[in-house]
């Protein structure tokens, strides 16, 4: 039996799979899979004996599809259906932003645009809408940001489900997804008169570590001159209240936020210049805190020193789960970077892919 690192790279022109041994010295790339259309979400589901890879396909001509692979991403086949709103609902599926394993061995959850949650119990062949959030009393008051009205984050802990919606805010279920309530105390917004509304915030990403289940980190839409300190947040009470941990960062605007797999105190963000949403000063950097956001360190070794202006999107930063985990970062200018030694050293794995929307890494044993 051997460990293999599987890297799913969702791009503007389809899904790529990169595979490596555990030393991660050389990644072999295959693809693109799909219809040459954007892939915003991917998942390697390792719960079954035989891992399954799922990828969404946002096809502007023929609608959204889900593709599934049972051979570690050598071939993909369309599932029998994609999430679809019920007859008479009036909404139509625009994109699939998140796919995560649900409870038990079979449940698969998908967060979609317009913001709604779907569940599959048969490997993505059939889907049912979960009305507790999809038909929430707030749902018709949510509104799309530039990227659309998307449910992009699903964080699970048994019956406890946290959702991130842009722009809808943070919602929590404590009953396995039957009911949800908005939980945004301290989550600010710079684009509505009330700086701290009950809901409607432009949450960009939420992260959590299983060893610290009551602690959550959030990359919210920051960068507001008149309302500072709303961009990078932390909660110590399971998302009931939030406070800023942005002191020391060059910007509190960004998209992804991830937690180190081995340490709930170690968190990473990619601050971006607020207006252009690119690397501040043309100098790419990932920022790391090893004490839960009290202090931040700039990680630049291996990145260009100047003239680099790109964006790292919300699902384009991820860790693998090897003994010494590595970070992977995809960029809108089509590069995929590996961050070794906790992000102290960065190397470019792929230079010239299409715009990267998501990077998801998993280790499988074959």
């Amino acid at each position, binding site marked *: 039996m051997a460990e293999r690192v599987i890297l799913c790279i969702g791009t503007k022109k389809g899904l790529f799979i990169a595979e490596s041994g555990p030393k991660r010295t050389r990644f072999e790339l295959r693809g693109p899979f799909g219809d040459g259309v954007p892939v915003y979400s991917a998942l390697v589901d390792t719960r079954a004996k035989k891992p399954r890879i799922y990828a969404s396909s946002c096809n*502007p*001509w*023929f*609608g959204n599809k889900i593709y599934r692979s049972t051979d570690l991403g050598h071939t993909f086949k369309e599932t*029998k*259906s994609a999430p679809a709103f019920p007859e008479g609902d009036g909404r*139509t599926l625009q994109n699939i932003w998140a796919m995560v394993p649900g409870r038990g061995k079979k449940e698969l959850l998908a967060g979609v645009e317009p913001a709604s949650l779907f569940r599959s119990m048969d490997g993505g062949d059939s889907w049912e809408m979960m009305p507790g959030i999809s038909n929430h009393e707030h749902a018709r008051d949510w509104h799309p940001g530039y990227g659309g009205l998307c449910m992009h984050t699903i964080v699970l802990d048994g019956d406890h489900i946290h959702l991130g919606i842009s722009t809808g805010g943070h919602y929590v279920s404590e009953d396995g997804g039957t009911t949800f309530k908005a939980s945004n105390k301290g989550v600010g917004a710079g684009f509505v008169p009330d700086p701290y509304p009950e809901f409607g915030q432009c949450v960009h990403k939420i992260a959590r570590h299983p060893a610290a289940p009551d602690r959550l980190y959030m990359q919210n839409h920051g960068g507001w001159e008149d309302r500072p300190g709303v961009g990078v947040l932390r909660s110590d009470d399971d998302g009931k209240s939030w406070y800023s941990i942005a002191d020391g960062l060059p910007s509190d605007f960004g998209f992804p936020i991830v937690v180190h797999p081995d340490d709930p105190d170690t968190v990473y963000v990619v601050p971006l210049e607020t207006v252009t949403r690119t690397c501040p000063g043309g100098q790419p950097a990932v920022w790391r805190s090893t004490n839960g956001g009290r202090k931040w360190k700039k990680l630049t070794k291996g990145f260009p020193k100047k003239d680099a202006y790109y964006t790292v999107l919300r699902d384009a930063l991820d860790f693998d789960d090897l003994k010494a985990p590595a970070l992977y970062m995809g960029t809108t200018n089509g590069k995929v970077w590996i961050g070794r030694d906790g992000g102290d050293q960065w190397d470019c794995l792929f230079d010239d892919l299409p715009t990267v929307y998501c990077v998801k890494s998993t280790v499988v044993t074959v």
Partner: protein
Amino acid sequence: MPVSVQLPSALRPYVGGADSVELDVADVRSALQGLAGVNAQLYRSICDETGAVRRHLNLFVNDAHIRDLAGVETQLKNGDTLIILTAVSGG
């Protein structure tokens, strides 16, 4: 009445690779619903959850776009061809 529905290449795998489907229908709406009976994924690729034809697809009856006729209510007669084409779009 028998009409032929011509499919773009990307949708042919849903019907075993065939480039067209023969249906006995009287209008475009019935033809689209008939495709649902042939293959649900084929239909969903052409129409969204509300039944509307997807925005970047163009439907022609023979050589006339259905928007210049009566839309999905356009009547079909024996021997007509309903042609489904992808719009020029992308980037």
